[in-house]
C-alpha cells in the first residue's frame, strides 16, 4: 500500500514537473529558435530536434534527398521529404497554409519562389552562423532565405561531333552557316534570354536571334537534363543552355560531352527557407544550418555550384552574372512572352 502510494506520488511529481521541463526547452517561439545565436546553438537545436523526432522538407532540387539522408544519418533523426516541381510545391504550401495546415518545416526551391514566400510572410529569418560564408547575392537584405545552389547557364557540345577549336566564341559566331541544324536551347529559359538581351541591348540581341533562327534554325528541348542527354547522344551537337553541372555529371559516366562558355554567362539561384509555422522548429533550423555547411560539400561532390564561398567550384575562374530573384519576379512576364514569341514559336 505504502509502496503504491509512493509510486503514485513520484509519478505525480514527475508529471507536474513535465511542463516545466518542457518549457525550459519549448517556451521559445519558432522565430526565437531560428534566431538563437548563443554559443550552444548547435546543442540546443540538436536536443530540441531529438525531442521533436521529425522534420518535413519540401523540395524540387534533385540533390536534396541526398542531403536529407546524410542529415538523418549524422543526427539519428527521421527527416521526411516531399518532392515535386517547384510550382507544385508552391501550390501545396499555399493550399495548406490557407487551410491552416502547417506540415512543412523547410523548403528548397528556386530563390524567386522563396522570395515570394517571404513576401507572403510564410518564412522566418534563421540566424545561421553559415550565412557569413555565402556569396554576396546569396542572402537578401531581409535574410529570410539563403542560396544553397547556383545554376549557371552554359553551352555544351558533343566532343565527337565538334572540335574545341571550332566552337563559337561569341553569339555572333553562331550566325556562321556551319551551325545549321546543330543548335538547341531549353524550353523554359526565358530568364536567360531576357538577361542576355538586356546585356546585349534589346534591339541588337533580338535581331541577332532572329537572324540566327532564319540562317541556322534553333531547336527547342524540354528539360535541361534531356537537352544534355541529347548532346551526349549526338542528336544536338551544340546546346546553348544547359546547366553548368549537366555536362560534368554525364562526362563522369563516359559520355562525349563538354561544357563550353559563351560570354556573357548568367545564373539563377536556388534557396533554402524555414517556415514561420514550422511544426519542428529545432530540426528545421538544424537542417537549414546543415544545408549551408555539410550540404554544400555534398553538392560540390556532385558537380554543383554552391552558395557558400568556402568551397571551390568548377566555375571558380569563370565570370558570370546572377539574375536576382527580385529582377526575375519583376520581369518574369515580359521575359516569358519575349522568349515564347522569339524562340519557342519560331523553333525549327
Amino acid at each position: 500500500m505504502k509502496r503504491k502510494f509512493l509510486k503514485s506520488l513520484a509519478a505525480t511529481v514527475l508529471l507536474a514537473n513535465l511542463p516545466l521541463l518542457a518549457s525550459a526547452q519549448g517556451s521559445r517561439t519558432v522565430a526565437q529558435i531560428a534566431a538563437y545565436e548563443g554559443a550552444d546553438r548547435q546543442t540546443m537545436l540538436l536536443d530540441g530536434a531529438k525531442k521533436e523526432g521529425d522534420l518535413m522538407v519540401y523540395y524540387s532540387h534533385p540533390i536534396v534527398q541526398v542531403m536529407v539522408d546524410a542529415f538523418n544519418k549524422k543526427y539519428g533523426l527521421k527527416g521526411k521529404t516531399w518532392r515535386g516541381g517547384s510550382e507544385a510545391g508552391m501550390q501545396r504550401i499555399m493550399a495548406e497554409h490557407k487551410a491552416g495546415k502547417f506540415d512543412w518545416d523547410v523548403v528548397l526551391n528556386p530563390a524567386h519562389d522563396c522570395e515570394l514566400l517571404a513576401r507572403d510572410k510564410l518564412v522566418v529569418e534563421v540566424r545561421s552562423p553559415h550565412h557569413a560564408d555565402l556569396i554576396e547575392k546569396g542572402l537578401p537584405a531581409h535574410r529570410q532565405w539563403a542560396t544553397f545552389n547556383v545554376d549557371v547557364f552554359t553551352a555544351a557540345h558533343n566532343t565527337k561531333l565538334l572540335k574545341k577549336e571550332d566552337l563559337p566564341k561569341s553569339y555572333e559566331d553562331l550566325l556562321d552557316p556551319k551551325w545549321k541544324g546543330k543548335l538547341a536551347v531549353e524550353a523554359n529559359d526565358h530568364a536567360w534570354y531576357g538577361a542576355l538581351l538586356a546585356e546585349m541591348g534589346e534591339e541588337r540581341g533580338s535581331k541577332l536571334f532572329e537572324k540566327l533562327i532564319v540562317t541556322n534554325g534553333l531547336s527547342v528541348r524540354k528539360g535541361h537534363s534531356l537537352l544534355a542527354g541529347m548532346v551526349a547522344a549526338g542528336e544536338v551537337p551544340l546546346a546553348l543552355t544547359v546547366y553548368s553541372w549537366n555536362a560534368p555529371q554525364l562526362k563522369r559516366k563516359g559520355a562525349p560531352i563538354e561544357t563550353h562558355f559563351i560570354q556573357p554567362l548568367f545564373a539563377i539561384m536556388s534557396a533554402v527557407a524555414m517556415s514561420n509555422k514550422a511544426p519542428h522548429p529545432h530540426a528545421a533550423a538544424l537542417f537549414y544550418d546543415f544545408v549551408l555547411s555539410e550540404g554544400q560539400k555534398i553538392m560540390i561532390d556532385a558537380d554543383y555550384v554552391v552558395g557558400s564561398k568556402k568551397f571551390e567550384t568548377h566555375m571558380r575562374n569563370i565570370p558570370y552574372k546572377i539574375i536576382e530573384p527580385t529582377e526575375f519576379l519583376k520581369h518574369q512576364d515580359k521575359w516569358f512572352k519575349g522568349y515564347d514569341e522569339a524562340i519557342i514559336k519560331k523553333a525549327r
Partner: protein
Amino acid sequence: MSPVPAARWSLTEGFSFKWVVMLPCVVVVALLALVPLVFLLWQSFLTSGSGLTAGTFTLENYASAYGGAETIRLMVNSLVFAAGTSLLAFVVGGSLAWMNERTNTPCKMLFFSLSIVPLVIPGIMFTIAWILIGSPKIGILNTLLQGLFSTDRVFFDVYSMYGMIWVDGLHYSPIAFLMMTAAFRSMDPSLEESALMSGASVWRIAKDITFKLTWPAVFATLLILFIRAIESFEVPALLGLPVGLHVFTSAIYQAIHQYPSKTGLASAYATVLLLIAAGGIYFQSRISRNGKRYATVTGKGFRPRTIDLGRWKYLTLAVFLCYFALVVVLPFLVLLWSSFQSFYSAPSTEALKNMSLDSYRFILGYPNFSRAAWNSVMLALASATIVMLLTSVICWIVIRTRTPGREVLDQLASLPLVIPGIVLGLALMIFFLNYGVGIYGTIWILLIAYVARFMPYGMRYNTTSMLQIHKELEESAEMTGSSWLRTFWHILLPLLKPGLLAGWLFVVIVSMRELSSSILLYSPGNEVLSIVVWELWEAGQFVELSALGVMFIGVLFVLTMVAQILSKRFGIKET
C-alpha cells in the same frame, strides 16, 4: 415485381433494395465529378491571384485563351494531330483485336499480352526510343537505310506531324485493342456464321456485320482516343516543340507550370475540351437509346467462336509479327539496350563496351522503391476494381432504367476525362484540406483521385459492354423471383466479364502511370512509382528509367499471361 425496364423513381413501387446499392454509388460519382468540375469552372473566371491573395472575378482568362488567332492555329494543329492519332490507333488496335478474337490466327495466346506492351512503357521513354529510331540525325532506321542505299536522304523524320501521329497512335493503340477485344468477345458470332454460310467474304462480314454490331464500342473507342490525343503531352513536347509544332495542351501546360500558376487560364483552355467531350458523350447516349440493336448476347445459347480464315490465317499472323517487330520489339530493344548503358546513346559497336547492369542495381536500391512499388500496385488494383464496379452500377441506371436525370449522371461520370490532371489534383487537395476527415496526407486521397480520373474510362467500357447484352436475361431472372442484387451479381456482372476485365486492366495500367494528380497529392510514406519515374526523368537518369521500363514490361507481361491462362480455364469454353 416490376419488370426491369420500368424501374423508375416511384414511391408506389415501395422500397426496393436496389436503391441501397445505387444511391451511394450515385452520390459518390456525383461528388467525385462535381468537386473538380465546379473547381475548374470557378477557377476559369478568377484572376490567378498571387500566393495568399484570392483571385477576383474576370473574363480575362477566356479573352486571352480564345482571343487571338494563335489559339485557332493551336486548335487546328491539335485537331489534325488528334484525328490522325485516334484513327491510326483505332485501325491498328481494332484490327489486332479482331484478328485476336474473331479469327483462328496461330499463336494468339502470346498476342494479347504483347499488344498492350506499348501502353506500359512510360510515354517519355516510348517517345525517346522513337527519337533514337527515327531521328534524321541519329535514328537507327535512317542510318541503316542511308548506309544500305549509300545516300544521305532522310527516310523518316520523327520531328513532324506525321511522326507525332505515328508515335502517339502506336502508343495508344492498346486502348483500341482492349476496348474492341471486349466488344468482340461479347458478340454472338451466329450472325457472322450465317453470313459465312451464305457465301459472304471475310472482309464483307467484318465490314457489314462485325463493324456495325460493334458500332457503340467503335464510337466509344474513337471518342476516348481522340480526347486522349488532344490531351497528350509527351509526344508534342518531345517531337513537336523542337521544330515549333505546337498543340493545345502545350498552352495548358505552360499556363500551369510556372509560378504563380495561371490555373484560371488553363481552366479556360480546358473548357473547350469539356464541350467536345460533352458532345461526344451526348452522341453516345443517343446510340445507347437504340441499345437493342446491338444486343447479341441473349437468352439463346452463346458460344464465342472464331472464323476460320483458311490459308489467310498466315497473312494475319504476318501482320501480327510485323506489328510486334515495329511497335513492340523495336522500342523494347532500344529500351533494353539503353538500360545496359551508362548514358543514352544510339546502338553502336563502340557503345557495346559500356554495357553494365548498374542501372538495374540503382533502381532496386532506390530509396523507397519497394514501398512505392507496393503502393502503386495496391492503388492500381483498388482503383481499377472500384472504378469498374462503381461504373457498372451507374451504367445500369443510365442504360436500363428511365430514371430522370440519368443522362446528367452519364455526363457527370464521364467528364473528368478532360479535366487536366493537375487541376483535378488541386481541386481534391483544396476540398480535402478544408472538408476532409483526415484524408489529406494519406494514401486514400490518391485512391479517390484515381477513381475520379479513371471513372470515365469505366463508363465507356461498361456502356459498350452492357449494350451488347439483351435485357431479357435479367428479366427472366427477375421473373423467377431473383432479387435485383442477385441478378446484378450473378447474371449481369458475369456477362459483362470481357468488358469488365479489359476495362479493369486498362485502369490498372493508367493508374500505375498517373503522375499529374499524384505529384500534388502524395505525402511521405505514400510515394508511388510514377513519382520515381518523374524523379529519374528530372535528374536526367534516362538509362535507369529504361531499366525501370524494362522491369515494368516484364512484370506486366507475366501478369497478363497468367490472367489469360486463368480466364481460359475458368471462362466460357469454346466447343
